[in-house]
Each structure stands twice: as structure tokens, then as C-alpha cells.
């Protein structure tokens, strides 16, 4: 970190849950955004309720980044524990602003070059302003001083964030801010101050993946959602509950995941675009229903925002260990699509596509998120709302039906998709079932019919591959080394690739966005490489295994995995790859 205009800044605010760490981050986010920084924000809370260690981390960078940086440059710590936990992640020459209300900082765990500013915020806040809560604005004052922000700008941002509070609360916080600045100017040397860049500000959204999923669903005509709360997927339900009235939509909290998924099926059968969202344990409960949607050919979008498993696991930690279940879970053979977005824009786009695809293919479409993609927020350009188009699929209305001599719900067609009518349409009476059945929907176990029907359903995928979203690829297209990863890996891979390229390694990258079926794009990427590192968050190497199962050559695949609940940092990933490359060289040298 150089003292000149910061191009990349990682700030953590940490304390006990309920300390209001998020407020400090919000004001700083506002400030950085005004200065033209891109933001990436992550929260890390213990799986407990009030209290317990809680941290919010934000990266501000002039380049768009999809992950946190390797190190923390600035830490606002409201307690000793926060410092101890962050100690190994502190950058050289980084700064800790410590709330010394309960005593001086013990800096045993810290490298000597980490600087500490100790101020008893809490004590001062209570003493001067009569409420502990004001320590947040106090500490922002200190921060703003260190970052060489002038009073006007700091106040402005604070006021913006608190604009919905009553006047006296705003006044008190402003007072706290100024006190903070004052303490800082006394305690913190003028010459050590950092300066922020002042880049051009563009219109940006700060949104999480879960929120973007909900928004995309509404754009794509989604009007029925049923869910059951579960970390880290709950925000999809909550966003939709917030916005549903305006669009006359229904967002219902069911009694469990089985009810949620089956309510969505019931609504979907009436032609209303329907979704449910959950995380691993709930997705496991929905397996039977997903197979049913596949069998009965009912359009359904299911979001699985993955957390660390197995079972209850670590609910607030990210993992990508339900790939197997999403692709291969549930009973029997049936067509399904699994899409994996990498950041909020992707979430929005793939949510739209998933909602359309479910209608086009009449089968379950799964949106595979992970906790980091779902819950972290980042700044992105506003969505291009005008570009959203609805694909109605083969829906028959009353007049089309009237002109048909016969209507068979499961008519065997060239591409396997049957035209369908929804309840209420005269002439569209039909039988929808999860049993094997003939074209009319009547139960049948005739072997010839069975083959026809299995093949028909499979054709829905095989003859509609062109509808499936392509991935994102970047880097040096002619490189022989490839990096491949989905979801939260995207941002880390991007940054690692830039660094590796800078270090002289030729690398190309692919973030597949359709993970099931495995499409040619993915296999071609592997085929055209000498080796591909598959980077993922799980113990088994589920994605790598999936690619092998799809025909990728074993010799070509290198598997880089992590499963400790913490995302890769770009630096960590770089070393993993460099190490793997070195190992290869070593081997081939022998």
C-alpha cells in the first residue's frame, strides 16, 4: 500500500454482533462510491444471534473486483477478539483503529509494521454523547481523517446514509463524526495520512446476488414465489416479499421446503412463472419434488444458495459442495438444467434466463449460487432492463386450442417439448402426472410407450442446447493452461489470472455458466488446453469429477480445492497454481 492515491483498499469493521459495524461500512461505501471506486462487500457473522464476533469487510478499488483482496489495509476493531482474528490478514503498514474502552490493545499477534490508533470510542461516546451506539460515527470520523477526507465530504456521506433518521439523531451523529475527526487529528500524524483517488463516478448499483436473483425473476415475469427461510438463501424470499405488492405478485412463506416447492409447482401449472429458493438442507428435502417436475414436465426454477455442508454444516460459510446433488440428485433420469452465476449481474441475467428456460423446456431449472455469490454485495452497472425479453415457450391459448382437432398434454414432438394449455382453457383438459403415461397423460407402463416418453423428455435438452447460456471466458485464448471455476471463484480467478499473466504465465480462463448439461464450450475449453485447473470449494472436487464424467481427459484436469469455509484470496490462488505448475515441472523433469 503506497501513500499516494489508493487504487485498492480493503477495510474491515469488526466487533460483537449488534455493534453496528455495518453502519461504518455503509458510510464509507457511500464515500468511496462518490470517489468512483468499485465496491465489494462481505459479511462474516458467527452462527449465533446477537453478539458473537461479526465483521463486515469492504474492498474499494478503481478496477472492478469480484472478491476481497489478500490483505486488510484498515481495520476498525471494537474488541480485542476482532484484532486477534484478523491479525494474520493485516497488510504490511496497515492501520488498526482500536476501541480501547476496555483497555489497551494487546498486539502480540500483530506484525510490528502494523500501526494502531487506540481511542476509547465506546467510553467517549457514552461520556460525550450518552449512547454507546455513537461510537460508529466516532470511528468513521477517525477513518475519514486518516483517509484525508475533508469535513464537508465526510458529513455529506454520513447525512446521506442517515437521511431517514430524525433530525436530532442526525445531529448527534454529526457531532460524533466531528469528535472522531478531532481525536484523530490529535492522535494520528498528519504526514501518515492516506489519500483517496478521485475517479469519475458512474451510475452504479450495490446489490447482492440474492437480491439480483429476486429482481431478475420479477423482470422475467415471475409472479409466484414460495420459500422457507434458510441461511444463506433467505434474502431471495425477503426481497420478493418486499417487492411483491407492487407487481401484484405472491411471495409466500410456506411451512417447510416440501410445501414451498409443491406450491410453486401448483402455481406453475396454471402458467404463472414460479420459483422457490433454499440452501443445501432444504434443497435435499426438495429432491423428490424436483424429480417430479422433471417427470410431470412442469416449469420450475429452484435456487440453491449453497452453504458449507454436509447437513447443517456451517450455515453462514460459502461452499460449492452441492454440485453433485444439483446435477445428479433425485430419483430417476430426467432432464434438468443447472446454471451457475458468478456475481450479481450474472445472477440477474441467469435468473431471467432460468425463468424463460423453465417455460421453454418445461422442466426444473436450478440456479446454483454459493453463500458468497448470494450474500456478498458489489457495485455493478445498472441492469439493462430494456434488453429483458420473455420467451413464452409452447403455450397454447384458447383460440389456438380451438383450432386443433386434438390436444395431448404430452404430445411427442421433434424437440421433445409439448405444446401446453393451462387450466381454465376450454379444450385443454388433461392429465398431468409423475407416473409414466401416454401422450394423453394416462398412466401406462407399456414398454414401447415408456421408451418413447423417456426419449421425448431427454430430447428437450438434447435438441435445445443452443438455448443454454454460454460461459464467460477471458485471458489469452491461445494459452495452454486454463483456469476454470464457477460462482464465487470467478472474481478470484480473474484477479489471479491478471497477476499470473503479469508474472509471465500465459493463461486462459472460463467461467461456465451452464454446468448441466456439460456443454461443448466447456469441453472444448478443456480439449484445447494442455491442462486445466478446476478451482472449486469442496473436498471431493465435484466439478472436476463432473467434467471427467462428461468425457474430459483425466490427464488434463488439475483440481484445486478449498473447503474451510473461507473463500480463496487471489494471492492464495496464485500460489496454488504456481505450486501446481512447479510440481508438474518437477515431475516431468524426473
Amino acid at each position, binding site marked *: 500500500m503506497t501513500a499516494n492515491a489508493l487504487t485498492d483498499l480493503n477495510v474491515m469493521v469488526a466487533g460483537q454482533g449488534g455493534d453496528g459495524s455495518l453502519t461504518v461500512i455503509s458510510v464509507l461505501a457511500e464515500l468511496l462510491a462518490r470517489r468512483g471506486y468499485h465496491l465489494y462487500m462481505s459479511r462474516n457473522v458467527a452462527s449465533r444471534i446477537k453478539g458473537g464476533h461479526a465483521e463486515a469487510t469492504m474492498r474499494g478499488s478503481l478496477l472492478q473486483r469480484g472478491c476481497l483482496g489478500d490483505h486488510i489495509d484498515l481495520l476498525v476493531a471494537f474488541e480485542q477478539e476482532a484484532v486477534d482474528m484478523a491479525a494474520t490478514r493485516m497488510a504490511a503498514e496497515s492501520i488498526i483503529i482500536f476501541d480501547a474502552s476496555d483497555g489497551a490493545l494487546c498486539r502480540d499477534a500483530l506484525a510490528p509494521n502494523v500501526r494502531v490508533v487506540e481511542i476509547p470510542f465506546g467510553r467517549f461516546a457514552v461520556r460525550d454523547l450518552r449512547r454507546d451506539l455513537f461510537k460508529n460515527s466516532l470511528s468513521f470520523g477517525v477513518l475519514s481523517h486518516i483517509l484525508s477526507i475533508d469535513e464537508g465530504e465526510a458529513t455529506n456521506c454520513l447525512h446521506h446514509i442517515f437521511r431517514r433518521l430524525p433530525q436530532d439523531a442526525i445531529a448527534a451523529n454529526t457531532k460524533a463524526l466531528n469528535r472522531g475527526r478531532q481525536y484523530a487529528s490529535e492522535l494520528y500524524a498528519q504526514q501518515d495520512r492516506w489519500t483517496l483517488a478521485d475517479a469519475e463516478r458512474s451510475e452504479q448499483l450495490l446489490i447482492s446476488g440474492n437480491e439480483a436473483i429476486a429482481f431478475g425473476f420479477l423482470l422475467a415475469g415471475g409472479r409466484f414465489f414460495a420459500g422457507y427461510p434458510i441461511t444463506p438463501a433467505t434474502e431471495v424470499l425477503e426481497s420478493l416479499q418486499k417487492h411483491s405488492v407492487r407487481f401484484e405478485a405472491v411471495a409466500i412463506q410456506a411451512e417447510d421446503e416440501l410445501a414451498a416447492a409443491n406450491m410453486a409447482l401448483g402455481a406453475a401449472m396454471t402458467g404463472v412463472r414460479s420459483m422457490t429458493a433454499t440452501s443445501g438442507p432444504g434443497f435435499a428435502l426438495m429432491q423428490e*419434488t424436483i424429480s417430479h417436475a422433471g417427470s410431470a414436465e412442469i416449469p420450475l426454477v429452484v435456487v440453491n444458495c449453497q452453504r458449507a455442508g454436509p447437513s447443517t454444516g456451517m450455515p453462514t460459510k460459502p461452499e460449492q459442495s452441492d454440485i453433485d446433488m444439483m446435477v445428479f440428485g433425485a430419483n430417476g433420469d430426467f432432464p434438468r438444467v443447472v446454471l451457475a452465476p458468478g456475481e450479481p449481474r450474472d445472477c440477474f441475467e441467469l435468473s431471467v434466463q432460468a425463468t424463460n428456460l423453465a417455460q421453454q423446456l418445461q422442466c426444473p431449472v436450478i440456479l446454483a449460487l454459493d453463500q458468497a455469490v448470494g450474500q456478498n454485495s458489489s457495485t455493478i452497472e445498472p441492469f439493462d432492463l430494456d434488453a429483458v425479453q420473455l420467451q413464452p415457450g409452447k403455450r397454447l391459448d384458447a383460440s389456438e386450442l380451438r383450432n386443433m382437432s386434438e390436444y*395431448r398434454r404430452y404430445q411427442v414432438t421433434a424437440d421433445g417439448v409439448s405444446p401446453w394449455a393451462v387450466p381454465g382453457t376450454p379444450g385443454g383438459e388433461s*392429465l398431468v402426472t409423475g407416473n409414466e403415461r401416454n401422450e394423453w397423460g394416462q398412466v401406462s407402463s407399456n414398454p414401447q410407450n415408456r421408451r418413447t416418453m423417456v426419449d421425448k423428455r431427454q430430447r428437450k435438452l438434447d435438441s435445445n442446447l443452443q438455448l443454454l447460456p454460454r460461459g464467460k471466458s477471458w485471458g489469452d485464448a491461445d494459452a495452454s493452461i486454463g483456469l476454470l471455476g464457477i460462482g464465487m471463484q470467478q472474481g478470484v480467478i480473474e484477479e489471479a489470472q491478471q497477476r499470473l499473466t503479469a508474472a509471465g504465465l500465459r493463461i486462459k480462463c472460463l467461467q461456465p455458466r451452464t454446468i448441466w448439461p456439460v456443454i461443448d464450450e466447456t469441453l472444448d475449453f478443456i480439449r484445447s488446453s494442455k491442462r486445466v485447473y478446476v478451482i472449486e470449494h469442496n473436498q471431493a472436487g465435484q466439478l472436476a469429477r463432473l467434467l471427467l464424467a462428461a468425457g474430459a481427459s483425466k490427464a488434463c484436469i488439475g483440481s484445486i480445492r478449498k473447503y474451510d469455509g473461507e473463500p480463496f484470496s487471489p494471492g492464495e490462488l496464485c500460489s496454488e497454481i504456481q505450486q501446481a505448475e512447479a510440481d508438474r515441472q518437477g515431475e516431468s523433469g524426473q
Partner: protein
Amino acid sequence: MTKTYQPNEPIWCAGCGHYGVRNALLAAFRQMQVESHQAMVLAGIGCAGTLQNNVSAYGYHALHGRVLPAATGAKLANPRLDVIAVGGDGDGYAIGCGHLIHSFKRNPGVVYILMNNGTYGLTKGQHSPTADAEETDEQAFDGVQLGLSIPGSGFIARGSSASPVQLQALMVAAMEHTRAGKGFAFLEVLSPCVTYNDTYPAWAGRMVNVDALAEYDCGDRIGAFTAVNSLLVENRFATGLIFKQDGKSPERRRLDSGQAPLCDLDISPDRQLSGFREIMAGYGV
């Protein structure tokens, strides 16, 4: 006219109680002038859960135990439909009983016809939750009593496949209740399984039709519970319209607040661009 599927003949054993349920439903449909395209008959899994194949309507074969959530979704999405959910006692009182409780509570305009035969017919005669106490060492479950215990439940009735006239009348009353936007209507039908648990003789003398009792007040929850429970401990069943209370279904609440049926909404995004832009602006920094 577009030709569509022809309802199959039932595949039930000769003498199965479920025939009576089907016949009463067809008669009730006629009486209520239900148009086949406006009715959706959703079924659970079991012998009872094949009834939808024998009726002209939009039929759906749900998963075992999940017919009520599916029916709820359908009714919320298209409130114009007559949504009839059917199923057996295994389907509704064993694997599906959590959803039954929450359907009483949520109160969607769904008619739920549960065919109680004290056994799992389709899987060949295992005990169901309503199986006789002597055989199972457990007290038989009673769905009517359960319904009464859920605050907000609004229509609870019991019929018998041996009493077609009463049964048809109860079905009509249930459909009228849902059509009026009052919410969930639960109708248990005693419908013997002649193959695995022939309770025709055992049940014959045990039914007491509360509709015929002069002093019975079906608007009194405590009175209803008292009557049902008193009969139950004597090994008898209350039948008839046991409890009725006017509520408001969620889909009716939506309509009353001026919202269109979900299935009628124009969902093209350009129709609501300003709304979407406003939400997006809320995420702006």
C-alpha cells in the same frame, strides 16, 4: 371441439368405497354446473389418488402427501378455478398431515376430499393413522377433531360413501364455501377398502348425522368438538356439516384489495418498467 383425453374407468376393486366418492363428485359437478375446463382436480397417491383420472377436468397427480401445497399454489395463481384436492388417509393423515394443518391455517379456497378407509389400499393393506386402535396399540387419529383444533379453520364436514345424497350435498356445500371466497373446505369421506379393511359392516351403525340433530349448532367450535369427541370415545363418528365459520381466503383477500388474479397479469417487462426502475434505483450508490 378439440378432442382431449377421455376419463378412464376407475381401476378400483369392485365394491370399493371410492366409487361412491367419484359418483358424488360427478353429481356435485353437475349440480354446480362446473365446466370441465374450469375445474382442477388434484390428487395424492394411493387408490384414492387415482380419482382424477376418472373425471373430466384438468387433472393432476401430485406427490404422495403433497396435494395440498400444490392445490394452494394453483388456487392462489388462478382463483377462478374450482380447485378440488383429493387423496387417501395415508396421503393426508400420515405423510401429508403437516400440510393439512397449514391448509386449515392458511385457508386457501380449496375443497379437500379425504377418503378415509383406515388402511393403505394401494400398497396392499398396511395400517393408516385411522386404523383401529386394537390393531395398532395406538388410538385412531381423527381428522375432523384435528380440524376443529386449528384456529381459523372454517369448513369441516364428514360424509360416507355409503350415503350418496348427503355426500353430494356436502361436496356442494364445500364448493360453495370456496367459491364464496371463504376459504378451505375439508370433507372427510368414510370410504371403505373392501379388499384390505372392509369396514362397511363395522362402520354402518356407527355414524351419527349431526345435520339431523335439532339442537346441533355447526357455528359453535366448542360445541362441535364436544359432540365429535363424545361420539368418538363411544367409537362413533359424527357426520354431516360439523363446523362452519366464515373466513376470507388469501386469494379473495388479494382480489378484494384490487389485485388481479396472478394468471391474468400482463407480465411483459415493458408494462412495468417504471416500477422496475424505481426498485433498481433503490440499489443505486
